[in-house]
């Protein structure tokens, strides 16, 4: 019977934990909190995954809640997005005392920064805010960051940004109930598609390992899967804008979460989707093909919709994963090495490390 087994409970934050992010290659976890700090947690024993230690605290640079944290793809830097409207870039001071220090501060947003994300190559950083905009920054030498573009198509707060696993393609999730896809034409960034379907705020998004699908989590208590259809696709989905792919909703996972879903993570190791939110429950879904509703060519042509292609099968549901507290973030370990590990952070101020057991 598949289930999530708790490996460790990490205490230390003095306020709610908003976000948990795994280092790209090592068993190191960064978590950020309303206590204005980031904590770095490391597994101390290769043979025993229940032993963890807090090995660093990033503090002093942000004057308000740190809402999101993300490692650069090479693992050498951390970016922090704060309610103080800035984004901090941190590096470990290897020559000095080994502490993390803030080496750059990105300003520009008019109010709270909600999310930051590094592109796969590490060349770009995206930030988003309650000011409704998404900013694209170019990472230059000497910790210089140049703003390439300020994108203002969302009509409300932008809650999260996430990059495609391989391409320079960005997705954003918003309080305006939509997800927008952004691409560039020689550093000229524009909105390539706008995904509508959720009935309320979209809090989180994640790409699947192939980058052809996105899973989204919303205050409407559902998860949706969106699939990319490029121009000339064999299914016959029309792509109205020249050269631009469209994304269509191909599944809605409904009837499981009964309160807002704050976070979703699609594993690159085994393809399972984890979601969690205000109903205190972490759920793990297997996204399987759904063949009960195969549409004919005529039906697809008539609606320009591919129909329901997948279903979310619940493998595990851990209630009260953080007691009676909301869970704000879930994150699968990024590689196969510890692909069964899942980190979660909640309103109780705790961070938990879990392992999915599938027997």
């Amino acid at each position, binding site marked *: 019977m598949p289930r999530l087994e708790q490996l460790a409970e990490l205490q230390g934050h003095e306020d709610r934990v908003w976000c948990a992010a795994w280092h790209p290659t090592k068993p190191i976890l960064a978590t950020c909190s309303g206590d204005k700090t980031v904590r770095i947690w490391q597994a101390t024993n290769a043979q025993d995954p229940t032993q963890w230690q807090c090995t660093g605290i990033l503090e002093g640079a942000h004057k308000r809640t740190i809402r999101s944290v993300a490692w650069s793809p090479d693992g050498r830097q951390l970016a922090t997005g704060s309610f103080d409207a800035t984004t901090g870039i941190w590096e470990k001071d290897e020559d000095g005392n080994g502490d993390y220090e803030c080496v750059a501060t990105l300003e520009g947003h008019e109010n709270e920064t909600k999310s930051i994300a590094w592109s796969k190559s590490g060349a770009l950083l995206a930030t988003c805010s309650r000011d409704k905009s998404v900013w694209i920054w170019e990472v230059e030498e000497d910790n210089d960051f140049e703003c390439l573009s300020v994108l203002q198509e969302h009509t409300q707060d932008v809650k999260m940004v996430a990059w495609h696993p391989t391409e320079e393609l960005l997705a954003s999730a918003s309080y305006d109930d939509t997800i927008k896809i952004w691409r560039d034409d020689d550093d000229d960034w524009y909105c390539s598609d706008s995904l509508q379907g959720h009935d*309320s705020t979209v809090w989180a998004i994640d790409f699947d390992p192939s980058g052809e699908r996105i899973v989204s989590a919303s*205050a409407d208590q559902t998860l949706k899967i969106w699939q990319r259809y490029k121009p000339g696709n064999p299914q016959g989905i029309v792509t109205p804008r020249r050269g631009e792919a469209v994304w269509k909703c191909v599944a809605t996972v409904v009837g499981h979460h009964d*309160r807002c879903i704050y976070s979703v993570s699609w594993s690159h190791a085994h393809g399972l989707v984890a979601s969690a939110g*205000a109903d205190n429950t972490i759920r793990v879904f297997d996204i399987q093909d759904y063949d009960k509703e195969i549409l004919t060519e005529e039906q697809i042509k008539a609606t320009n919709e591919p129909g329901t292609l997948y279903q979310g099968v619940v493998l595990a549901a851990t209630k009260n994963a953080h007691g009676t507290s909301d869970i704000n973030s879930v994150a699968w370990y990024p590689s196969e090495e510890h692909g069964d590990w899942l980190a979660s952070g909640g309103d109780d101020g705790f961070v938990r490390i879990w392992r999915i057991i599938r027997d």
Partner: protein
Amino acid sequence: MTTLINQNPVIYEASAQNSTREWREDDDNEDSTDPIDAQEIFDLIRSISDPEHPLSLEQLNVTQRDHITVSDENNSVLVEFTPTIPHCSMATLIGLCIRVRLLRCLPSRFKVDISVRKGTHQSEHAVNKQLNDKERVAAALENSHLLEVVNQCLATATSGGVVANIKAPVAVK
């Protein structure tokens, strides 16, 4: 003088007692935990001051006990409130005051939903969405000026019942 949003609110009579609940044998027992009910929630919020007038939410009929739904075993609370006029721009602030009051007084296990009574506000969807967005609320409460206004409205909240001579809080600019 700043123009008030609602110059002439209707004033209702607040009930003179603190609580309409009868004394129960268990009441003096400190160890027993009574399930939390609508009356208790109402008692917590009835004396919050309106941001604009020296009156309580109860006196303005903004909050009513019958518009509160509680399930102690499901850890859920729903508070519906009625803005005094349909275009009341204070609605979000009033909702925020209710939320902060309950955040500070209720056990953390409770999930609290706050909304305006259906049909009582012209932007009810927008107001409700804001009041129930945890991130927006958290960010708002880090705004010291806004927090000060909220605290002024909550200063009278412990009066439990009829409140005479509330000093009008500073109206939000």
